[in-house]
């Protein structure tokens, strides 16, 4: 019974989701939305699980003086500081998002710059990954290098200045071979998703039932 009940729930829920996709009439029409709301509620509660895991693992690292424990300390201070700012704002302002509130101060002057910094690093990582990918060691890599050079030059104003052939070729590459490959992968993913969903609904795929 330990496995049969979850399998039955999965089968019935999967079937309901599929059937309600084709039936707009109430109460089936909004069933999918309702199940998503339930999912969001469960997700909200699991944030507590996440916080518990985060705090426990980092406090253990500090207690054991594991390598890099000061980072864990910074994380705990950051976590508690943000939480305190949030509670203070909630108690004193109309909304957590009130301009000038302490929570928005943390968000604007800590979180956004940190996010922007990480995102900016992508430029350097793209350069290093492109350098490795475009080394013309094999025929395929050489073709990739030439194609990438044409697309990159065709997408910037200087490309058209060199030759109108560059932007035209770049557009053709993006619209024909690139799009064909992308759609091929899309169709494969869509069919794979249908097959995987069927395996889950029929109870063949039970990895999630550990």
């Amino acid at each position: 019974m330990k496995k049969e009940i979850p399998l039955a729930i999965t089968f019935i829920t999967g079937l309901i989701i599929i059937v309600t996709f084709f039936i707009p009439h109430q109460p089936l029409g909004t069933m999918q939305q309702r199940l998503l709301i339930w999912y969001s509620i469960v997700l909200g509660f699991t944030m507590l699980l996440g916080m518990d895991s985060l705090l426990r693992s980092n406090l253990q690292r500090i207690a054991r003086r594991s390598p890099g424990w000061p980072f864990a300390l910074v994380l705990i201070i950051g976590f508690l500081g943000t939480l305190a700012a949030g509670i203070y704002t909630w108690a004193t302002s109309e909304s957590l998002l009130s301009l000038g509130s302490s929570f928005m101060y943390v968000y604007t002057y800590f979180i956004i710059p940190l996010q922007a910094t990480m995102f900016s690093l992508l430029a350097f990582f793209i350069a290093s990954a492109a350098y490795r990918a475009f080394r013309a060691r094999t025929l395929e890599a050489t073709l990739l290098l030439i194609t990438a050079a044409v697309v990159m030059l065709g997408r910037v104003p200087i490309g058209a200045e060199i030759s109108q052939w560059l932007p035209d070729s770049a557009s053709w590459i993006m619209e024909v071979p690139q799009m064909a490959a992308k759609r091929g992968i899309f169709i494969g993913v869509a069919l794979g998703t249908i097959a995987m969903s069927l395996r889950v609904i029929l109870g063949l795929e039970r990895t999630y039932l550990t």
Partner: protein
Amino acid sequence: MRVFLTALLLGALGLPLLALEPPSGLQAADTPNDEGNSLTISWDKSPQDQGDADRFKGYQILRSESQEGPFAEVGFAIGGKTEFRDNVEPLKPYYYRVVAISPEDSAGTAAVGPALATAQWFDSSRANVLILTVLICFLIIWYIERAKRGEELFIRKIQGLDAVDEAVGRSTELGKPIMFSFGLGEIKDIVTVAALAILRQVAVRCAQHGTELLVPNWDPLVMAAAQETVQQAYSEPGRPDLYKEGNVSFLTSDQFGYAAGVDGMMLRQKPGAVFFMGYFYAEALLMSETGHSIGAIQIAGTTAITQLPFFIASCDYTLIGEEMLAASCYLKKDPQMLGSLKGEDFVKAFLIVGFALAALWGTTGHLLFKAGHPWMQGVFQAVKNWFVTG
């Protein structure tokens, strides 16, 4: 002569020569294929609605529960529009008027109605999806049934999955931990469920070799599922003592915060192998390039097409799209699960033949259309429209 002079005078003063006319052909009807909470109001454009916003503003939609009124405004459609969807209560009669509005004048229609919003039991615009879904599911289930009867099925080698043992073995030899990331996938994503199957395989190998497994998570629900999976996997070879709950932990639900956390763990703990399995966004390259910089053997798998090139450039092996979703079948080699893959391949072959025939039909139809025979292109357009709109 007098008419001409009057017209000239009015024109010189910038006044309209013709009075504003209301829209014609006003209709109010139930919106098809909905849950019975809207009506669609349609009309033919007013003659003065010529696309000039300075001369013609749009249409005011008025609604009442009785033909005599009073009518209240429920919406406004800008010039050029000929349809408006109004949210209403089901099975209640409503009357509508539409008033054309110009900067100087307004002209309304007579009331039409009553119109009642009713719910439908079948969304006919999705008939195409239903037919194709039934067909695809039938083929997949048919192959599963054939596999149940013991038919031998072949599955091609997937290098990325074969390399799992190699990656775990290498990490064990180096005495380094192994890292597994689900990216930003949620538990409701089918690709995350597929990634759990790979995690299970990796965890079993880690338990057999006594190698530490680190699973930082972005989603607490995925973390809970991963904890269960890893704990169960460690029990399989009889090493539940090696399982550490703190190694399968939650980091943050912030995208770049998660990337920074994973990068930090990689740089400090130097895993010998890193698995990126699930759904990824811009953080994919940030993490995989860091993994590359520490010399870890990296295996990635995702259905996120935009991130695939980055994984291919920075990882040793990449599972592309459907390979990722086939992982559990490949690793288990269960005949019934392989049967579903066979069914999937059959549908793919069916689609390839279908696309080739459609391209041939469409091209021939276009050539015949130019030669004055439109029937072939007409059939092509009808089939295409059915696929697009149902």
